[in-house]
């Protein structure tokens, strides 16, 4: 089966729409609004203007000289999505979809969030554009990411802790879908990654392609050539697809995605859809899913809330099957080791999600050697993870100087 045999909205056999009929009209409306916006130069200009004056794009491609030493000497560059307003790549997609919400005449957005980065970005865009905002977040995640909960509330969003199921991102998505099906005439579901029913995967990818466009131009300016490898962490997979999109047609550029290995794939406590999942249907699309022999979704696990999801964007499933992108698990301990290395060599505290990509770069750099050029998507900053990291590294409160 090739992509051409299937209706639009598919990536090979993956993607499509598996949703309650009540959502069909809204997805058709969204598809039409997106198509219409793409053809309207004013939409592109408005988005570019926001990216420049609000997000702070273009963000730099930072040569990570001291970190490179830990990567077998390969020259590693960091695409600094952490320097965007709100601290991660998520804002790229959110601004695009918030503009579409206005175009569709809707006045309310809802979102799911795992680590809270997408929730914060959505709350930010809603405040900027005068939209009502409700964010669904698994109760477990509201504890892990308390700082982001406070940020969303400061921005005027309602945060709803979800107590169903495993109380993480998967259940937050279920709850957001239930809200949407009930309020769809006035609400847009501002989905935060390249998953879900068509047209979400294609649309969210489009809004993140700016990452790849900038990185390609920047690496050509810095090195005078394309990189040997481009790497990113993969939860739903939006930061990865955004960066990869500019290099998919360059067969000499290796593309690597790193998914959460949790306690280790062999323990069952992980979020490695490609290493241990199989094709199925979850949250509106056919894709790789962690599931049991009966098709029940298995709980995922990762130290990183943003990678703790049993499904993955359908385009990644296709890129996996075609071999264009290689996906590997990175366990919690390896990610946290890379987290510490980046803090100490570059003075940059990354998000724990991002630390999985950094661990991947350390592996790959040692494999490719000192002549290699590698771009890592530094998808988010780690302020939200300071408490988790402090607990991991056993950094208790230091005794104040001068006290006995």
């Amino acid at each position, binding site marked *: 089966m090739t992509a051409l045999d299937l*209706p639009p909205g598919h990536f090979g056999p993956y993607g*499509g*729409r*598996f*949703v*309650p*009929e*009540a959502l*069909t*009209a*809204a997805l058709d409306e969204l598809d039409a609004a997106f198509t219409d916006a793409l053809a309207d130069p004013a939409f592109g200009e408005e988005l570019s203007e926001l990216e420049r004056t609000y997000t702070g794009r273009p963000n730099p491609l930072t040569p990570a000289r001291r970190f490179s030493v830990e990567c077998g000497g390969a020259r590693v560059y960091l695409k600094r999505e952490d320097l965007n307003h709100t601290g991660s790549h998520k804002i790229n997609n959110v601004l695009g979809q918030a503009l579409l919400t206005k175009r569709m005449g809707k006045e309310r957005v809802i979102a799911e969030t795992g680590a809270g980065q997408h929730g914060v970005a959505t709350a930010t865009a809603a405040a900027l554009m005068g939209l009502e905002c409700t964010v669904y977040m698994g109760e477990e995640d509201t504890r892990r990411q308390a700082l982001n909960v406070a940020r969303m509330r400061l921005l005027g969003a309602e945060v709803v802790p979800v107590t*169903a*199921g495993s109380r993480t991102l*998967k259940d937050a*998505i*279920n709850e957001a*879908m*239930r809200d949407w*099906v*009930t*309020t*769809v*005439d006035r609400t847009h579901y501002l989905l935060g990654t390249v998953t879900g029913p068509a047209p979400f995967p294609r649309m969210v990818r489009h809004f993140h392609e700016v990452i790849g466009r900038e990185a390609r131009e920047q690496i050509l300016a810095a090195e005078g050539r394309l990189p040997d490898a481009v790497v990113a962490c993969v939860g739903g997979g939006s930061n990865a697809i955004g960066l990869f999109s500019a290099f998919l047609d360059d067969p000499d550029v290796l593309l690597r995605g790193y998914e959460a290995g949790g306690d280790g794939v062999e323990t069952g406590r992980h979020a490695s859809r490609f290493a241990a999942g199989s094709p*199925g*249907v*979850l*949250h*509106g699309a*056919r894709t790789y*899913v962690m*599931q049991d*022999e*009966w*098709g*029940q*979704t298995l709980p995922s696990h990762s130290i990183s809330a943003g990678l703790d999801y049993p499904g993955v964007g359908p385009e990644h499933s296709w890129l996996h099957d075609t071999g264009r992108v290689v996906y590997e698990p990175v366990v919690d301990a390896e990610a946290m080791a890379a987290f510490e290395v980046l803090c100490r060599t570059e003075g940059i505290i990354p998000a724990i999600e991002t630390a999985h990509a950094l661990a991947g770069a350390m592996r790959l750099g040692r494999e490719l050697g000192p002549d290699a050029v590698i771009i890592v998507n530094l998808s988010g900053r780690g302020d939200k993870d300071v408490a988790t990291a402090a607990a991991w590294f056993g950094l208790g409160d230091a005794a104040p100087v001068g006290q006995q």
Partner: protein
Amino acid sequence: MSRSLAQVFAEAKAEGRAALIGYLPAGFPTAEQSVDMIAAMVDGGVDIVEVGLPYSDPLMDGPDIQSAVELALRGGATTDVVLDVVRQVSESGTTAVVMSYWNPIERYGIDRFAERLAQAGGHGVITPDLTPEEAGPWIAATSARDLDRIFLVAPSSTDARISQVSSVTSGFLYAASTMGVTGARTTVSSAAPELVARSRRLTKLPIAVGLGVSTGAQAADVAAFADGVIVGSAFVRRILQAETPAEATEQVRALARDLARGVRGG
């Protein structure tokens, strides 16, 4: 051998009433008791039993059914258990269909599921998250075994969409009364009569209305314009709230009686 869906709807029509369709998840509240609960539902006057296949991510269901399927899954309600419940219901002479989200069917094997369901005496499947665009292999598998495929329409469905959905549907068309998830509501949405009237102009299939019906009076209202009335969460809630299995059975039977009076015009 139980009667086909077409026969049940035709007989109800001949009696000048709507058919009553009752939903309960297999394995709820326990594997053994679920068959008793269904029997009580039938004893009270349910014409067609919708056996729910418990799924981990029921995104079209409200809190009552979510709780019920979580309990069922914890109790080991696998697809094979569901098929066994269908077999027992069918052997008792009652018409049974399965209601399932798509992934468990695909995982079981589309052909294998259709084959086993037909062997168990089931008459069809309601698939709330399968769209006609994605249904090619399912249409082939069900057609080959004379199983009915029940798709849904919603108040937001355009006329063109209703025609498209109806063209792949058999047995009956499931009209979701409201924009929302399953769950008892104090009033049945005013969108339902309009949706049924529109659908009637576009298909000859019997039309059953679901989502939100929980009392005999509501069933009577819906029966005035639809060919079938579907009730699920209200049964589930009676079982969740009962102190003992005996009380649960009694409550289910009493609700079914009330609803059965309702579909006969009150």
